[in-house]
């Protein structure tokens, strides 16, 4: 067996500490009985209890959830359609350019995405009078646009691994194109659709920068509220809400990983090959 180098182990430990110590300390201090954030005052759930009484916070949380659910649903549907189109129309001129362009938002700085969407909404309001004001709707639209890119990537990976003769076989057996789509294509893509949805959901729930750009008066999402609160000083209830978000995100990301990584029925594996 290879001997583990102590040097290497130290570096690894340091790296993980850098990543997780801040998160773990937030979680621990969320159970702190003391009003002072830096002083341990015994175990308590009082900050979780105080969250329930905070109307602003609950409102923001509900708004964030609503936006996340709606935008994830639309992003999944649109992203799947785009992925299918890019996959099917393989003789489409400029497919490489198009598929590059669809994934560009993944690496685009959020500031730029946020700013350009804000400009779009303002000029749309000027030109066609919609959206009349910015708020939950504009945030949802903004979230759909950037989440969609992630869904396209996930769904295309699944499509690339899918045996196309499955759809042909269904058609050969009398399935019309629409029936084949729902009988074969959708079930085959289901793991990708679910993980795409979960990914979009978390992205939307986390987003601060783009939401801040396209939001208007009266629409404050949870990250926006937390950010605003922290600027006035960190209070222990922030630790509690943060812990809840961490738990939620961990659960969803783990679920998405399990679903998309499951050795799902991607292709009808060619039978145990004899000789050819």
């Amino acid at each position, binding site marked *: 067996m290879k001997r583990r180098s102590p040097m290497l182990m130290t570096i690894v430990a340091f790296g993980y500490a850098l990543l997780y110590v801040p998160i773990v300390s937030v979680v621990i201090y969320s159970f702190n009985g003391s009003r002072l954030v830096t002083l341990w005052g015994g175990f308590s759930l009082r900050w979780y209890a105080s969250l329930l009484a905070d109307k602003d916070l609950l409102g923001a949380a509900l708004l964030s959830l609503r936006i996340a659910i709606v935008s994830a649903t639309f992003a999944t549907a649109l992203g799947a359609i785009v992925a299918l189109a890019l996959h099917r129309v393989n003789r489409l001129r400029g497919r490489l350019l198009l598929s590059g362009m669809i994934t560009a938002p993944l690496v685009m700085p959020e500031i730029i995405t946020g700013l350009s969407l804000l400009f779009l909404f303002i000029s749309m309001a000027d030109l066609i009078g919609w959206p009349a004001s910015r708020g939950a709707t504009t945030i949802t639209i903004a979230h759909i646009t950037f989440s969609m890119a992630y869904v396209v990537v996930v769904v295309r990976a699944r499509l690339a691994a899918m045996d196309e003769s499955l759809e042909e*076989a269904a058609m*050969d057996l009398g399935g019309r194109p629409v029936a084949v789509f729902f009988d074969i294509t959708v079930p085959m893509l289901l793991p990708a659709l679910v993980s795409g949805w979960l990914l979009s959901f978390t992205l939307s729930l986390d987003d601060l920068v783009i939401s801040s750009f396209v939001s208007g008066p009266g629409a404050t999402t949870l990250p926006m509220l937390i950010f605003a609160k922290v600027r006035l000083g960190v209070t222990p209830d922030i630790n509690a809400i943060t812990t809840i978000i961490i738990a939620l995100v961990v659960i969803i990301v783990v679920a998405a990983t399990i679903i998309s990584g499951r050795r799902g*029925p991607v292709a*009808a594996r060619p039978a145990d090959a004899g000789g050819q």
Partner: protein
Amino acid sequence: MTDTTSTPLVQIREVTKRFGNVTAVDRVSLDFLRNELFAILGSSGCGKTTLLRLLAGFEQPTSGRILIDGVDATDVPPYDRPVNLMFQSYALFPHMTVAENVAYGLRKERVPAARIRERVAEMLAMVKLEPLAARKPDKLSGGEKQRVALARALVKRPKLLLLDEPLAALDKKLRQHTQFEIANLQYQLGTTFVVVTHDQGEAMTLASRIAVMADGRIAQVGTPGQVYEFPANRYVAGFVGNINLFEGRVTGVDGGRMSLRCEALGVELAVLSDEAIAPGSAACVAVRPEKITLSRQAPETKDRNLVKGTVWDLAYFGDQSLYRVRLKNGTELQVSAQNLRRSAKLTVEWDDEVYLSWEIASTILLLS
């Protein structure tokens, strides 16, 4: 039995399919009779799979027509054709059980549920898979998958069943067994089966008629015997089975008998042929390895062609032996011989001087 009296079930009329500037299928005309097991044989890239996809309706011909049961089906989409295809990959739906896979075609036809159950049970019994009805495809062996695919493709009682390399994914033993199963099934059901294959042995054992394809065109259509013993051209002769092929020049024509000078053999050969060929024109002479008799003593030469050589290499298979005999000028001939007598010692060994002779009637004349 194959019905040769009525109109063919499928008539392919001058069908051409081009992809860009590649012609995959080139002016193919072909008939499939009712109740026959037909094989389309060719090496990969010869256009046989494209022809199959044209028949199934996944591709539209660039020109030409396809008639199925007298009806022009050229523009009929795959889901409305009385044709089913068994895919090479089997293409079983992985999210459905064996029974659901088989039932799919009937469900799309809106057959009543009770009738579907009945029919699926019937099909599963036919391919001996009843105990596996509730399994998912990934829990099946290669041979079981193949049978599910067959049952699924036959459940709608198609007029024409297409099989794309049905045995390619099976191991050797299973392949032989499945060959007989497919042939029996075809006989029982009376459906026309069209098998696409690159394996000439498979085509010969399965089919009652074979079409050999090369470069998108039909090189020859005939029974296995016709294709093997009377190949239409050099390509078919070389592709189906082993053969010794020599270029020659016609030196004399005498009624149904012709003599040719073969430089590679250094002799004059006699061939039976009714072809009208002028002396002096080029032609090709061929003979199958098993038609050649090998002997150490000079044989009877009446109505036989004869050459002399040395055994260069031999392979002993038990039931038969394969010899490579080299002539003085370096030309090599393949000869196969049944080992008729029980003996541990071969009668002909390496480096033996031997006479090779074969009947004039077994000599093949190829003009193209």
